[in-house]
Every structure is written in C-alpha cells, then in structure tokens.
C-alpha cells in the first residue's frame, strides 16, 4: 500500500543559475514559495513532476516537497532552509548582514 500523500509544492533548481524555484499556477517557475501552487491531489502532483522532469533546459532536480498548506511552510527541515535561505550568512566586519535576504536565526529557534 502506498504511503499517505501530503499536500506538496513542486521544487527544483534553475539550471543556468542554480537558484531554488517552485512551480506556480500556469506552469511558471517562481522563486518565492508563497507563490507556489499547492498540489493536494497525488495524481496531479505526479503528473506535474513527470512534466517537470522533461524541462531539462530549465530546471534540475525536480521533486515534490510536502508542506503545511495553511502556512505554506515545508515539513522537512532541509526544504525549510531551501525556501528561506541559509540561516547563517556572514556579516561584514561593520557588523551588518551583507545582503538583504540574510536571516539570522539561532539554533534554539527552529
């Protein structure tokens, strides 16, 4: 018997740049997980995954990432970090994070 299916988003890395991407409605690749289509139906999710695996000039490593539909938050730690970016970006010696997407979260907060 197959395992229970969780609502998921379809994710991959952009081929030329390597950035994390998600499949949004209309089969568009987006960077923000909040814009990703939540796939609640197993058959549709697997069909889209099969389609994504043919997009070899656009993306690499397509997979389904189970999420909490209410929060749009991935269930797996690894996918949470892929969605949010690294928790540990270096600071410049002036003491400020050196890019806008940096997010410092201490070990006790996960």
């Amino acid at each position, binding site marked *: 018997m197959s395992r229970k299916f969780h609502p998921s988003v379809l994710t991959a890395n952009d081929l030329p740049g390597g950035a994390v991407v998600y499949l949004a409605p209309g089969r568009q690749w987006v960077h923000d997980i909040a814009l990703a289509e939540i796939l609640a139906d197993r058959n549709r999710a697997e069909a889209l995954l099969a389609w994504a695996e043919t997009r070899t*000039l656009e993306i690499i490593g397509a997979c389904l990432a189970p999420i909490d539909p209410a929060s749009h938050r991935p269930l797996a*730690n690894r996918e949470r*970090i892929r969605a949010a970016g690294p928790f*540990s970006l270096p*600071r*410049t*010696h002036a003491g400020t994070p050196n890019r806008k997407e940096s997010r410092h979260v*201490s070990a006790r907060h*996960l």
Partner: protein
Amino acid sequence: MYQPDTFDRAFLQARTAQFRSQVAQRLSGALSEEEFRPLRLMNGLYLQLHAYMLRVAIPHGTLSSAQMQALAEVADRWDRGHAHFTTRQNIQFNWIALKDAPDILEYLADTGLHAVQTSGNTIRNVTTDPFAGAAPDEIADPRPVAELVRLWSTDHPEFQYLPRKFKIAVSASPDDHAITRAHDIGLRLRRNENGGTGVEISVGGGLGRTPMLGQVLMPFVPLADLLGMLEAILHVYNRLGRRDNRYKARLKIAVSTFGIDRIRTMVVERFERIRRHHHGAGLKVLARIEHFFRSPPFARKPLDGYAAALAADPAFARWAATNAAAHKRADHAIVTIPLKAPGAAPGDASAGQMRLLATLAARYSHGELRVTQAQNIVLPHVHRADLPALHRALDGAGLATANAGLATDITACPGLDYCALATARSIPVAQEIARRIEALKIEHEIGPIEIRISGCINACAHHHLGTIGILGLERAGAETYQITLGGQARAPARLGERAGPGFAANEIVPAVERLLKGYLALRKSPEESFAACLHRLGPRPFRARLYPDAPKGKHPRHAA
C-alpha cells in the same frame, strides 16, 4: 612559492576551454544532466541547496597576495561578496551560476588557481602543514613534495575514475599539522641514519561514516622511489576498491578487509614490476620545485617597539601570546588569523577581509598566506617588530580575535545551511557555542581545545578528531547532535568516542557548556589541558556532566 610554467598555463587554458564547451553543450541540451554531472564535478562545480558551489583548490594551502586578491574579486564579481575556507585547504563560493563558471575559472587560471580534481573520484587537492617552511620543528619544507605529488596526480590517466575520492597529505613536523593519519595516503618526511630524506607512508586513513586512522605501510621510502610507490598503491586500490558500494569504496575499507600486511605485499609486488620505469622519476622536477620554496629574504629589525607594545597593550599581548607561534627564526612569528570572531560563520571571509589579508601579507609576510585545516588564515613570516602594526590593522577589520586554538576557534562544515548532503545545521550551532563561551569569558581559562562540528556523517569538519566533536544528524525529522570526546588531530592522532545519546538543537549549547565547566572543576591544575584531563580521568566524569539526570552509575553510552 610555486610558479606555474608554460605547460601548467597551457593545461589550465585547455581545461577551461574544454569546460566552457561542456557548459555550453549542457545549456543547449547537447549534453544531458546525467552526462554533464561528472564533467562539472571534475571541475569542482557542485549543485548545492541554493545555488551551484565552486570549490577552488589551494594547493598545499599556500596563496600569494595576488591569488588572494583574485579570490576576493571572484567573491565580489560572481558570488555574493564572501567565500568559505574549508578544512582541506580549499575555498568554496556558494552562490555561483553555472553559466558564469567558465569565466571564473578562466579568470582564476591567470593567477595559477583552478578547480581541477576538487571533486569526483580522483586524487583531490594535496594538502600539507600550513606552517610549512616556517615551523621550527620541521625536518624540511614539505611543500615541494606536496607539489610534486600534485603535478603527478593532476590529470593522471590511470587515476581519473577511482572507486572513490582519494586524499593525500604531506607533513614534516612531529606535530603533524596536516593530519596525515586521516588521509588515504599520509606522507611524513623522515631522515634515515645516513641523513637521506625520504617519507614514511601510511595508508587507509579517513573519517566519514567509518572513521579509521592510517596504518604505516612503509617506514621509509627514498624520494627517488616515491612516485613509483604512489603508483603502486593507487594501482592496488584501483583493483581492490569496492565499486559496487560507495560506502565501502574507500581505501580504508580495503585495508581493513585485507589487512595492512596483505596490502603491503600487493603494493610491493606491483612496485617491483614498475620500479625500473619510475626509479628517480620526479627528482629533477623536485629540484626545480624546491627552488620556488626557498625561504624569503628575512629582514633584521630592532625589537624595541615590539617589547614596548607587549608591556603597554594587554590586548596586543594576549593576541600575540595566542595567535603568534614560534617561527624557525626567533625574531619572526607565524601569525594565525582566525576567521572565527565569536558569532561569525567559521571559515567565512568577506571580499573586503580577503583583500585586506592580501595587502597585509604583501606588507608583512613576503606576499604569502596559508589556509589551515582549521579554516583560518596564516601569515607565515612576520617579523616580530611588525606585529603591533599588523595587530592594529587586523583589529580594525574584525580579524584580531585572540582565539587561535581556543574554544571559540570552532571548526564547522557548511552543514545544512548550504550543503546538499548535510542532515543538520552546523554553522548556527558553532555560532551559538562561540557566543555562549564569549559571554561566559572562560575561553582563556579553558586553554587549548578543539571543538569540531560536522553537519552529517561525511565528517567534513573532522568531528572525530575534536577534543569535543559534534555530529549533526536528523532523527524523526528533527536535528540531533551527538557528542564525541577525546579526539585529537595532531600526532598522535586519536579518534574520539561517542559520549552517549544525542541532544536536540536547543540542548547542544548547554551540553557543551556543562562539559567546559566540568573540565574546569575536574582539572588538577590550570596547566592540565582539557584533553590531558580527559585522558587522565577517562570519559566517565565528563559523561556525568553531560547527562546529569541519568541514574547514578548508569550513564548512557549508545542508547538512542
């Protein structure tokens, strides 16, 4: 420093052009990802969680100021303004686009840097002692031998598709800063009774999921036979290595399975067959290489200002005592610059910091820098008269933390923040531990200790060799951290032993704090180091501190 010749330059240019063509073919669809993946890995390009990562080799851990400037330029122009120095004397750029990789490699090739064999099942970057050429206790500078091995192994046709990756380290000092026993092949320079130079060869070291220390295969091999012996060892490994199981494919498994004596017999048998073709091979090249590693012209300067600064400036005095090691010349020092300010990501440097380090190396260390296995930078030849000025310059850039070899000088792999193989985060744990120790103000009281944190079983931070080792794993969807105690990287290398059940992410920092405070209570004097105290008492009293709630006399070992 080694200077690439016309052959080296032509090789790098051809290799870069070849990779540019391969990338173009991948982007056009002429190559599938399955076909392209091994090609990009051969050129050091991984796909990690957030982007491609480019690993550039720093052969024998030595950089010129110009090379450090070039690496800073890559960080600024193609990455996000920073880079990460690794435990195997490499540098990694974490935000690289595939389409940019050929341009980066072409740019780096102009300064002799490359990413060849920084990944894949080949002989990886040959590492050595970051204090080489400056250490007072070495019998010779190990870098010429390391460079010879690098030249021999680069693009070696027989060893491009080994059963698994293969690591070689070279050392020449009794302390073994290169951690040779943790490598597939460890080479330690030796002198025989006639004063001749040769190498002791150990084989079968490696950490990862099956940690083992290398065993001595040959106690002394003359340099004339070194390349022949390496050929023989690699040939035997190529035949014996398990290609059917990547987890059992390293040389250490073959050594463990067949035994060191049988491996030795096979190696000698092969060596005798090829000896006449190889005897003396490389000696002429070695003589040429040695020319590049001659000592720089050391200056003579009065030391009055240095002595006055030591007396007048406690912060400088503490930095000098902690970060400036003895040099083979008494009026010079080997300066370690930790990339470990408390709260910083271990091993990370901004492009600005890298440029400053390059400038300071040019001004104070004959244009030379080293990268250490502890993810720090070393200026190997600093006159002690220049130490006060160097300290001031570093202090202004947040690089003067006086913690080399202390508890906040934590070695950590990129972990789950970046790495596709990781199972838990390591950098945030290192940051939290360092912040806590800084807040407690106990670092200098604790003294020398190595804390090492790996984010998965592959052990890139060499946690088995930490006085306190931490291994991050995932258990039932949550990060769990196991502690090992009593490892040691320097000779005699020792593997730590697991202390007991793992700790949740929010428990690991207090657990380390209990260990450190426990040591302060248990030591017989301030001169007894954490490692010595642990060795004297055994792990039991330390386990009692780690697991205070365990039933008395029943401290858990391997449960959960």
